């Protein structure tokens, strides 16, 4: 038996490896550093890992964009680590977004100026309400493992969206999910609520993973390979029963749509988003969605693109159901985190319309389905991280976050700047023109329309109209409601304010001047098979 030596393209892999290395160093730091400097070391390590990874990614791109003779050339991409990873132009996009949004979200993790401690439990192992917990709080203990956990999760996300075969994808799925389950359960306040959310997320996530795995096995049975490119060719050549293919396709879809939070696999979203520590919710909301969307697009555009007549109608029905559930149930929410959770579900639905369009071959300079999805996610990320960061700033008398919508009444009078930024972000969620969200919605609906699903685009526009009520309700409460009693704004540090202001700037910038990012995306929106 002849086993070839494994080969690794270290330079191309370096963005992922930087994050992974930072995570591993974080574990070491957790073990060996004393308590006091540990927080600073972990925060610095995480940010260096993420921003370093981003720098390496940019370096990679600029190196690839220049030919040996020095002339500019199109970035084509390559398969890395013997086909396990595909480092193609879309990978650059999604990795870049994951690293930037990861860096912003992790900064919020580090916020402790408002209450003197991070949003994470002092001691996760201590039973809530016990003496051990009280002792841990008194000793100012902190779980700084949250930083390496987030980095591990991000490593998984980066690999997930760029996997070249199903096996890598499954491993990446678990690598990204397991730390998220943990992070969700580490809330400092309302710990039982947080732990309950983590357990639900874990149980339902495992359930979904099982479907994913089953679907994988069936696809392997049909095509004889895990490799996306081989599965693609097998669609035309395989002599197996088509039923196996369809069952595998359906079950794979279940696993992937679960991560996106698409109806009917959305039940976990409101509970987990509400129960998880708010910085983690912000992190999950954008980064998980980025990874899941990239993975979904890669599996269904690359491996199963030839079978799109089978899955487009299914996804179309689910997209409508998702938009409907997300929007309609958001109408009656009174808790801001839950409201944004339902908003996240509706956004998954809007995203799915572009997937359904499967619009791939576009005139030069226009966005295809993947480009539209990416633009939408960038717009969503610039709005959602600061939105959840803003939620951490309003505190009730006990020092806990005041997430009840009634507590936000009248904020526009006491703090017009913060309320103004929050309103801008909400308008972007709603897709109002001059914000990034508008361009994002326009892009995904255009992709659906161009792909032949004009009725889906019109349905989506209808639901975005209804959704506007949800967000404007909050703005009206903030600016026209009587100021609420018993709440005050925490004195947040730069770790919260930087993501908020960058997000607000990004939201406005991408709404006013979308052309730059669109041009960049247009160069890099085609998967390599």
């Amino acid at each position: 038996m002849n086993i070839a030596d494994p080969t690794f393209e270290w330079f191309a892999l370096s963005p992922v490896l930087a994050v992974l290395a930072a995570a591993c160093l974080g574990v070491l730091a957790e073990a060996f550093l004393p308590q006091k400097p540990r927080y600073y070391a972990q925060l610095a390590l995480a940010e260096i890992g993420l921003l370093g990874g981003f720098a390496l990614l940019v370096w990679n791109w600029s190196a690839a964009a220049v030919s040996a003779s020095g002339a500019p050339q199109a970035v084509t991409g390559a398969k890395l680590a013997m086909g396990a990873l595909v480092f193609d132009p879309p990978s650059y996009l999604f990795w870049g977004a994951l690293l930037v949004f990861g860096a912003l979200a992790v900064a919020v993790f580090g916020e402790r100026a408002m209450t003197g401690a991070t949003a994470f439990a002092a001691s996760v192992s201590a039973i809530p309400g016990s003496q051990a917990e009280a002792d841990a709080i008194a000793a100012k203990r902190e779980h700084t493992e949250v930083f390496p956990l987030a980095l591990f999760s991000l490593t998984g996300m980066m690999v997930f969206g760029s996997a070249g075969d199903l096996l890598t994808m499954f491993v990446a799925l678990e690598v990204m999910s397991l730390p998220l389950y943990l992070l969700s359960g580490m809330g400092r306040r309302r710990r039982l609520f947080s732990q309950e959310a983590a357990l639900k997320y874990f149980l339902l996530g495992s359930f979904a993973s099982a479907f994913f795995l089953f679907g994988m096995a069936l696809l392997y049975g049909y095509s004889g390979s895990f490799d996306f490119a081989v599965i693609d060719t097998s669609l035309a050549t395989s002599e197996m029963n088509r039923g196996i293919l369809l069952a595998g396709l359906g079950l794979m879809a279940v696993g992937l749509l679960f991560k996106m939070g698409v109806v009917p696999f959305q039940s976990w979203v409101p509970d987990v988003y509400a129960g998880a520590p708010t910085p983690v919710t912000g992190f999950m909301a954008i980064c998980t969605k980025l990874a899941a969307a990239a993975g979904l697009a890669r599996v269904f555009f690359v491996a199963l693109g030839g079978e799109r007549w089978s899955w487009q109608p299914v996804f179309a029905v689910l997209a409508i159901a998702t938009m409907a559930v997300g929007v309609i149930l958001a109408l009656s929410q009174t808790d801001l985190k839950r409201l944004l959770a339902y908003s996240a579900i509706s956004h998954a639905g809007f995203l799915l319309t572009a997937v359904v369009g499967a619009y791939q071959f576009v005139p030069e300079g226009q966005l295809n389905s993947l480009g539209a999805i990416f633009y939408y996610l960038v717009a969503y990320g610039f709005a959602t991280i600061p939105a959840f960061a803003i939620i951490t700033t309003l505190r009730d008398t006990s020092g806990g976050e005041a997430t009840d919508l009634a507590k936000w009444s009248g904020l526009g009078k006491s703090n017009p700047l913060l309320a103004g930024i929050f309103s801008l972000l909400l308008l972007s969620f709603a897709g109002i023109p001059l914000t990034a969200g508008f361009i994002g919605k326009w892009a995904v609906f255009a992709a659906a329309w161009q792909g032949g699903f004009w009725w889906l685009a019109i349905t989506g526009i209808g639901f975005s109209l209804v959704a506007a009520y949800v967000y404007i309700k909050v703005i009206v409460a903030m600016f026209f409601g009587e100021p609420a009693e018993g709440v005050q704004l925490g004195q947040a540090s730069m770790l919260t304010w930087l993501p908020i202001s960058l997000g607000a700037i990004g939201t406005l910038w991408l709404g006013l001047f979308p052309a730059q990012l669109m041009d960049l995306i247009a160069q890099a929106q085609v998967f390599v098979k």
Partner: protein
Amino acid sequence: MILLETMAAGAISYAWLMIAVPAVSAALLLLLGKAADAWGHWLGVLAALASFAVAVACFGQLLASAESAREVTVPLFTWITTPTWHIDAALLIDPLSILFALLITGVGSVIHIYSVGYMAHDERKRRFFAFLNLFVAAMLILVLSDNYLVLFVGWEGVGLASYLLIGFWQHKPSAAAAAKKAFVMNRVGDLGMTMSVFTMLALIGSSSFADVNAAAAKLPWGWVTAIGFFLLLGACGKSAQVPLQAWLLDAMEGPTPVSALIHAATMVTAGVYLVVRSHAIYAETEAAALAVCVVGAVTLLVGAWIGCSKDDIKKVLAGSTMSQIGYMMLAAGIGPAGWAFAIFHLLTHGFFKANMFLGAGSVMHAMGDDVNMRNFGALRKAIPITFWTFAMGYLAIIGFPGFAGYFSKDHIIEAAFEHGPAFGIIAILGAGVTAFYMTRLMLMTYFGEARWEKDIHPHESPLTMTVPLMILAAFSVIAGFLMNGWISGWLNPGLGVAEHEAEWLPTPVGLVTLVVIAAGVFLGWQLFGKKPVPKEVPDTSNPLVIAGRNDVFGDAVNSALAVKPTMLLADTTVANDTWIIDRGVDGLATGFLELSRVGRKVQTGQVRSYALFMAVGVFLVGVLVIVGQLG
């Protein structure tokens, strides 16, 4: 905005200053606020005078040029560039436009000076002068542009200034309503303007006078007629011609200098300018040209008719203005034979009507802002300067031989007879009626017994008001004589008008006209000079008088034809909005909220039910996949 290099030389290359100076002055007066209250009106006067100086310089340069070189285009900047259309903003200085520029800035300056006296005690004097300057700038854009689209900018600008100035005394509900009425009725005309520009851009690809004139002959008859009617609609709105005449009488709610400048001398004649400027269009379409004549003839009579039966001195003059513009329209519709006379009458009318309006302002000044002529009488001794200057205007408008109106009106009547006897008879009849109602005005105001209200002590106006009156009176006397032998030749290159032999002695038609005028004057003296004028409005069963007192039922017609149907449509729309759309939207919103309240119960918080939900979901996906295969 790309500035274009100008090829014009001398004063004409600075022609843009004519517009820029009053525009900047208007902006300054409005922006500086109270800081400019003390001296703002003098800035306004200076701006108008500066503009006049530039106009005179440009005129001088044109006079000195060879006849073939009297049409100068001054490019300013590129305004609109699209793949289909390219529109430059440019000024066209030619014999026609420069006459207008002189009238606007010249009479405008005089009226600015007059206003210093007239508005001396008004708290919002600075704003008044700002609006006057704005008007001058906009009116100059209108007449100087070389392009229908740029003309339209000025067209709307004067409409705005007119609206602001009619409603200047906004504390009076009647003034506010009159401003709105003028604005809305002008929108109807503006619709015609925009449609004509759209048609030009669509068919010709350009809206510049040169391109449109060149292309007019090649257009299909239907389209050139359509453009002609669209332009006529625009002209009717701006010039208060039947059927869009009703706003002009109400517009007298504005301060009197406004009535003189905008609603007598300049803006309301823009329609005549438009028709004359579009002569190439009307040369191609008999139907539209005939429509212009008919509109002019009808308005000529309607305006005179209204003038006969009003007791409000300004409304008599307003009716008279409509009537005189009707003459101009008639002349403009006649064709090459009438164009020069339309402009000639426009200029002389600009002088004598501004003169009489300012005179009426001076009378009002003397009589405590009363406008009812039944409260006047015997004023010739009390305010002699006003009386004598007004008398010059009177002689000019009735066409007393040698005075300004005599020459210009006589030419129009002659041309109308040549065009068609019906038009000629109407024109002569109009001249007689004009003589009648103007005599009535003179007798009721200046002669007879004093019928003054208590505590009214008439006094002559200050010099700032009487000097302008004298200037305008002088022009009312000599303008016709000065221009009679000259104007046809002057306008010849731009319009290609038929050269007329200047007539100095009355022709047979002219003699008949003089007889009819004399009859009008005599009749007026019989009714209002020989016997005392009653202070109360006499009852009458004469349907002609009743119609005249009611503005020939213009408002009633508008109400029945436009206002009532529009209100019905509006009411229906409101009802539809309230009962169907609002109910529908509210119901939809309630429905969604109810759905939301029910739907959230699915989110039980129990992980087992979530898992069940997922399992059902998997089943659903399976069903969908299978259904998809069947389809």
